[in-house]
């Protein structure tokens, strides 16, 4: 066995493995646990509690404001309503302005400014009944907060911005073009999200510490793979009446191949490969359903075996990739 395995990170998995050893004592295991940094010290506690309390404070205040305007209190004067949201924006902006932008509370303040901007637009629409479409709100909201998002370097803000752009695209297609479930809407979303993912993964691959965290690229990756799979499946069922679905199917297949290649060789992330596996299972199952012309009894019988078989194959592939990656490090 190679000695390089000892250069692997001392994760909780290693603790779980060592606990299985014969004659392992609690003292030794506790000592490994502490040295590895799993036991938070006073500095970690203060840092964690400070972040947790501020995040919860922001979450509750923002949701409280949203609930408040959802109540649509008729006795409250329209200027009072606008002043409440305006005041919240002002207070958050002042905190952000007088803090260093790399501090957590400054970033949270910017997030609050971004969320309250949306509330202000919604309240404005609620009071004056502007007749604007919902996509206007989301698009304007995204445009207004773009500057904040760019300077913040805060992933939850980027996530909010991308969600707004995605929502605006879906609502524009539905409300203006009257095409709610359209392959070209899926393709537009694919383009937007793929650009975002490529930018993120480029910097992640270059080991830029600002792009170290994995939750945002995972969510974007899931959204890309999942949306293309759904559009591809619709295409299979409708026999590609709209050629846009064929493009979606090709993009879906391309996404699977890219996810397998990139996340097993360049940036190790098994989760996107796992999602691809689930989507491939769904795709194969749909093809078989279609081929059997949705013949119920045989589909249920064959389908059960196929799903279990493909799941076993997927698990086998994922374990192999996991092992191959480990031997590389």
């Amino acid at each position, binding site marked *: 066995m190679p000695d390089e395995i000892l250069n692997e990170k001392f994760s*909780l998995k290693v603790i779980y493995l060592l606990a299985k050893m014969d004659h392992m004592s609690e003292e030794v295991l506790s000592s490994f*646990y502490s040295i590895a940094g799993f036991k938070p010290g006073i500095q970690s506690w203060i840092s964690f509690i400070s972040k947790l309390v501020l995040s919860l404070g922001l979450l509750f205040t923002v*949701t409280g404001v949203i609930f408040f305007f959802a109540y649509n209190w008729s006795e409250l004067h329209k200027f009072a309503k606008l002043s409440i949201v305006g005041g919240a924006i002002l207070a958050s902006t002042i905190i952000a302005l007088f803090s260093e932008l790399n501090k957590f*509370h400054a970033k949270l303040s910017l997030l609050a400014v971004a969320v309250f901007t949306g509330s202000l637009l919604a309240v404005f629409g609620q009071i004056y009944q502007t007749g604007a479409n919902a996509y206007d709100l989301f698009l304007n909201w995204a445009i207004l907060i773009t500057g904040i998002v760019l300077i913040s370097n805060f992933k939850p803000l980027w996530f909010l911005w991308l969600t707004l752009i995605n929502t605006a695209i879906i609502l524009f297609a539905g409300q203006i073009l009257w095409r709610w479930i359209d392959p070209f809407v899926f393709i537009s979303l694919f383009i937007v999200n793929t650009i975002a993912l490529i930018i993120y993964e480029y910097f992640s691959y270059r080991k830029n510490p600002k792009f170290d965290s994995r939750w945002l690229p995972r969510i974007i990756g899931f959204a890309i793979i999942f949306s293309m799979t759904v559009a591809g499946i619709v295409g299979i069922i409708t026999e590609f009446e709209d050629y846009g679905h064929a493009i979606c199917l090709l993009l879906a297949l391309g996404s699977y191949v890219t996810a397998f290649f990139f996340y097993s060789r360049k940036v190790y992330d098994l989760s996107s490969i796992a999602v691809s596996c689930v989507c491939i299972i769904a795709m194969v199952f749909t093809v078989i359903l279609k081929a059997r012309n949705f013949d*119920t009894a045989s589909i249920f019988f064959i389908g059960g075996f196929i799903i279990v078989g493909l799941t076993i194959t997927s698990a086998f592939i994922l374990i192999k990739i996991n092992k191959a990656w480990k031997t590389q490090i």
Partner: protein
Amino acid sequence: MENTNMKPTKTILDVFNESNLAKDEYKSYSSFLKSHLLSVDSETNVPWFVKIITIFGACVGSLLFLGFLLISHLLSSEESMIITGSVFVLSGIAVTYANKRNYLSDSLSLSLSILGQVLLGIGIGAKAIEFNTVCYAGLVVETLIYLFAQSYTHKFLSVILIPACLLGIIWNSPIFEATHFLIGGLAVASVLIWTNELPLQIRLNKLPCFFVPTAYGLVLGLLLTLVLSINSKFFVVYINHWYITSLISFFSLSFLLYKSLCQSLGISKKTFWLVLTIIAILFAPTVHAPGIISSVLIIILGFTRSNRILLTLGIVFLATFIISFYYSLQQTLLTKSLMLMLTGVLFLGIGFAFGHLKKKVAMQ
């Protein structure tokens, strides 16, 4: 310098070197890890995504096969469903014994087990008519699977389904309020099992499939039971006195903080009581929304154990509870909004006070 981001930063070699191990100890630990870390068959080495895929595939596969059995009228009587269900459950357990270390057999055994459990449920339900009987039978079956199946996924599902059966029994009785004690029990059990993680792992080292599925299953069982109970009006069940659940969760949080702050960090009793008082004040406005304090409990549990899965679960369920709270009909939106804003302002105030404390500690 402390590791404040909860990600492992040290290598196995670093930890061994810093532990000042004797030569023979070093040799035995490193050779054990070398042989186990590269083993594909080891359950510990299997990423959790693979386990999720296995559960997903097994559920869908077995439900499809169930559909086939029902459509083809192969199982037309209640007795045949019960017998076939029992055979499938037992076969599922047997497969886990046949090849314990082969992870790939897990999907097949899980499919058999799920299929058997659903068949048993339908069969018993059709024969007994009363839903309570199905829940009692489910309780027995899940306990048997938990005790005898030699697989993480089987035990994990059983740990989640046991509270579900208990919930069914409570909701079919006149004492809906017992739900608070079920949720409270799960909160207490989650804290106890995770705070005793290391001693339990060592004591159960001959039964490697027990700790991980039980510990994660209890946390997920707690959060799922809460989600169901908060939305219980959909099942025509009306639960009141939510402060009971909030109080039990608060006591669990207090115990967790006592273990972490007083016993591990050695902070004074006076400071501990001050912390508890602040927490009580902070959460007082949300006493009728127990999901909030319960998710915060799981988030803090995740932090104390440096466990990112628990932390993520806590955050995801916190968002879920706030959405559920929006639709709750127990208070008006105005009351709920004022309650949330008050809590938010309290939290922000404490947060900024903590910021100053952080600066002070950093300067020292």
